[in-house]
């Protein structure tokens, strides 16, 4: 039993965690025909149930998942896995119908029904079910109340509310102005831009994967792999000092993690050229600045010429650049993660003089 726990803890490393969710997404999209079978659906649910059931028996794991405010996230995990499976299943169903030359399920069910009783009763039943669930949940689990607020006593770890833990996790890789202000704003802008940059007229009003491969893959990447899995990671696996802990690991405040983070400027000037860092910040950071400009300004243009030309032609310049810029901003997180893990890179550009670190 303990061996199993240590084995699972071994996997719980931010790098592995991220790569495993990413690999899961790739598999889901690639092997979707197999993934949407009942066996997989039930299997995943059973696996989660067993995993959390087993976890409950462990003291440390139990402590984390039964923290009242964390209970909803256990629910979120189940719901998210279920609905990812469920929506893919319907998409694949419709794709199979299309391949056989039959209309989609939604097309088949195009006739009108009466709102009363068909819809009104469904609504009534779901209201009753929701009320019951909420009341049972409220009776069973008391809302948390800790010690009175005390500005002098900082808890360790201090966590934002759970729905912002993905953003807090980004703080590991980015400074607050990016992780807390710019990137969240870009998420909102990006979501709002979706209907205007997606020019694909197909797949409007029915589930399908084949007709919207890129869109759905990107959305699942953003929503499931980046947003949701980082929330799960931040809630369950980040302990004191924001150190990483396996689900069965004791939250030891004194756990030490070697931080050997290096700035890009040090890599280039000190390690590359073997000289001291230049005094002037502009000279010191010039390579990072060029790299950043290259990423957000040159790369989109280059991709328009080669690689994404098809999209450039299909979308036109305005839509293309907005799309690519949003996409690159989203990708900046995994890119920064990778460079951190592989090269211990802390900042690409680091100008503490102006609080400007990237």
């Amino acid at each position, binding site marked *: 039993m303990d061996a199993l726990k240590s084995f699972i803890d071994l996997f719980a490393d931010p790098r592995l965690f991220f790569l495993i969710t990413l690999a899961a997404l790739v598999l889901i999209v690639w092997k979707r025909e197999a993934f949407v079978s009942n066996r997989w659906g039930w299997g995943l649910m059973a696996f989660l149930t067993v995993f959390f059931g087993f976890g409950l028996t462990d003291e440390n794991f139990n402590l984390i998942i039964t923290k009242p405010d964390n209970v*909803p996230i256990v629910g979120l995990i189940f719901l998210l896995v279920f609905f990812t499976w469920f929506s893919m299943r319907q998409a694949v169903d419709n794709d199979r119908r299309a391949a056989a030359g039959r209309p*989609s399920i939604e097309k088949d069910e195009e006739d009108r029904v009466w709102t009363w009783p068909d819809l009104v009763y469904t609504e009534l039943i*779901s209201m009753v079910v929701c009320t019951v669930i909420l009341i049972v949940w409220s009776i069973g689990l008391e809302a948390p109340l800790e010690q009175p607020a005390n500005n002098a*006593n900082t808890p360790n770890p201090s966590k934002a509310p759970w729905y912002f833990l993905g*953003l807090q996790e980004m703080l590991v890789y980015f400074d607050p102005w990016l992780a*807390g202000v710019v990137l969240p704003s870009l998420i909102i802008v990006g979501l709002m831009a*979706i209907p205007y940059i997606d020019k694909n007229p197909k797949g409007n009003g029915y589930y399908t994967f084949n007709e919207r491969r890129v869109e759905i893959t990107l959305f699942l990447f953003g*929503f499931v792999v980046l947003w949701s899995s980082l929330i799960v990671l931040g809630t369950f696996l980040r302990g004191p000092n924001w150190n990483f802990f396996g689900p069965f690991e004791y939250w030891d405040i004194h756990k030490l993690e070697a931080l050997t983070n290096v700035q890009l400027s040090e890599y280039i000037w000190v390690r590359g050229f073997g000289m001291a860092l230049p005094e002037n910040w502009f000279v010191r950071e010039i390579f990072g600045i060029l790299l950043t400009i290259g990423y957000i300004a040159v790369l989109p243009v280059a991709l328009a010429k080669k690689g994404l030309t098809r999209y450039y032609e299909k979308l036109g310049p305005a839509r293309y650049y907005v799309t690519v810029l949003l996409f690159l901003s989203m990708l900046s997180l995994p890119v920064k993660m990778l460079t951190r893990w592989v090269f211990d890179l802390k900042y690409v550009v680091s100008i503490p003089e102006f609080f*400007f670190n990237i």
Partner: protein
Amino acid sequence: MPDTKTKTIEPKTPALVQAWDWITETQIWTSIFRHAAPINDRNRVLVMLSNVFLHMHPVRLRKSGVRLRYTWCMGGISFFLFLVLTFTGLLLMFYYRPTLEYAYSDIVGLREHVPLGIMREMHRWGAHAMVITVWLHMFRVFMTGSYKPPREFNWNVGVIMLVLTLLLSFTGYLLPWDQLAIWAITVGSNMARATPFLGHEGPGASLMAIGDVQLVHAADDARFALLGGTFVGEGALLRFYVLHCVALPLVIGFLMAVHFWRVRKDGGISGPL
């Protein structure tokens, strides 16, 4: 041969049915409900047109749109949870005073002195649940491609409501005024310090100066505006209370009206053309 005059016995209407018939014929009843029960097509139309709560629905809609399989009912559940939250929140407001002196003890009182009280639980778990259902609603709208024309605008209304839902949750998180509350809000609002140009630790803030006078500093930056102070204290509590109980619910309620109106005007629940 004896007289075989048979006596026909009228089938007796059960008492309950009689009572029902009587009630539905009273002037009071007919003044409220203008037509008989929706058991025929005419009345199924009338019930949708004459009932203020139902009139946001169409009279008839596509079969696929009624299916749980298609909508997951997540928009509807989000709305229902919003109503539950409004109601339970209103009850909580009777007990709760947003001051440093009372906030925490009012919550303790709510917990200890209200027998069988679950309003705080329903409010808190309902709020968590609403965040999740709104996300799932967005997920399903994406997966069915329902943001595509003509529903682009409604998707945008939705995104704003998603942000507002998170803000409602965030502002409410502070109100119990316990350690969990202030530190979560401290961590969250610390980000605002780093707002470019507008936060005193944000890039470019030092450029916001006239001569030697710094325009952006700890006591007037974006974070200060959010908290009404330089740390999470009395000012923040009042601000968050007003936002949580008045401002944000009004805005999101207004947007919900727009959202539902647009669902109708954009052709009802989406479906293949």
